């Protein structure tokens, strides 16, 4: 039973905007990162897909940027409780990246420059649900927001949208990435308010 906060009225979201539970709207773009933002030169950048043993796909910056790109308009929900609506990105769909990957594996671990990791079920990466984005609001993605390229999985809390991605490893079983190993939820659905591991 919640305690009523004497004299607290709150500031409701205007209009019909529906936010996940416990979120508030911002027009800003806050940043949450565990360490310094890495600076990655484009001539050394690569993105790989492997199965833990063999590299199945590899792109350098030029071949990656030659893939068919998509414009993405999505809402973002951060576990630190801000939500930002109608953000605009450009990137490559994971459907495109995984088109030639034949696998029975069901999970993926994303790896980033700077050693960040995050885990996702493969089914959450397919069918127009996930992208590797390289532009935000029409301009190249800034380092503090994950540039040169970051994962974008907007239906999960934003920590799943790993910044500075360099590859993904397909796995048979799910296992925790960086924040998931530090008490955050293994899946992270904002609509079910899966913030922490006990929720």
């Amino acid at each position, binding site marked *: 039973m*919640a*305690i*009523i*906060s*004497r*004299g*607290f*009225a*709150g*500031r*409701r979201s205007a209009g019909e905007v529906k936010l996940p539970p*416990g979120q*508030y709207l911002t027009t*800003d*773009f*806050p*940043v*949450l*990162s*565990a*360490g*310094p*933002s*890495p600076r990655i030169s484009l001539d050394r950048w690569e993105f790989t897909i492997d199965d833990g043993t063999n590299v199945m796909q590899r792109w350098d910056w030029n071949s990656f940027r030659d893939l068919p790109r998509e414009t993405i308009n999505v809402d973002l929900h951060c576990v*630190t*409780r801000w939500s930002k609506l109608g953000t605009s990105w450009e990137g490559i769909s994971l459907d495109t990246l995984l088109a030639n990957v034949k696998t029975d594996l069901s999970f993926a671990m994303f790896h980033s420059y*700077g*050693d960040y990791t995050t885990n996702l079920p493969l089914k959450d990466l397919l069918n127009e649900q996930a992208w590797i984005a390289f532009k935000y609001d029409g301009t190249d993605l800034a*380092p*503090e927001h994950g540039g040169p390229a970051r994962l974008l999985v907007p239906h999960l809390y934003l920590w799943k949208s790993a910044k500075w991605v360099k590859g993904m490893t397909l796995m048979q079983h799910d296992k925790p990435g960086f*924040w998931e190993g*530090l*008490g955050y939820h293994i899946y992270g659905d904002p609509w079910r308010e899966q*913030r*922490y*591991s*006990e*929720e």
Partner: protein
Amino acid sequence: MAGTEVLGRVTWRSGKVVALLDETSSARTIAIVVPDWPGHVAGQHIDVRLTAPDGYSAVRSYSIASAPSMDQRIEITVERLEDGEVSPYLTQEVAIGDELDLRGPIGRWFVWHIDQSEPIQLIAGGSGIVPLMAMIRSRLASKSNARFRLLYSVREPAATFYKDELQAISNRGESVILTYAFTRITPKDWPRPASRIDAALVSESIWPSHLSPTCYVCGPTSFVEHVTGLLIAAGTDRKRIRTERFGSTGEHI
């Protein structure tokens, strides 16, 4: 302590406000007694929930400012954001004796444990001092011999949190070495003109990289980006830099 960091973190508890202290004209420390508080580690935060009479509620996270202690009392320091929803209430409306819903402690990354013996470099921008103050207080309240340095960037002297306590700690000697960077207004006769932290100040006020310090940097995003860039340029191992960012990308301390 390891178990208590996880268990019971997401249970909402009721705490009673037992003391209020204005740190600056816009920031207030709130001391809360929380029955069955499971204990915390310096650097962790709590979620605070306010609920209106019609059931509408708003939750925000605040870093714990106090050292871990056995008395079920924690302190947070809240900076009022002019367009904020929760911080104006916590800095202006809350009274001694009020009950607050809260849960925690939360966070296992931006933390300092008393068994960490390496030199510790703390760098705060504005209200980013709060979790770092918990680390300093934890260090001083424990038997730790870890050597601490704090580089504290603040707009002007009047915006300094914990001013007297930091001065007393600094006067006591070598356990915590304190350096201020004033960005807009300096105290009278201050040797360094008002300016943001730069490479020269970093090189003269942080632990040299050969001592392998662990660095904790907390402040607005632009501050953290700027300072971590200077640390890496000064030779600090990026793997030893932990950050906590808040606020907008454009904010400047």
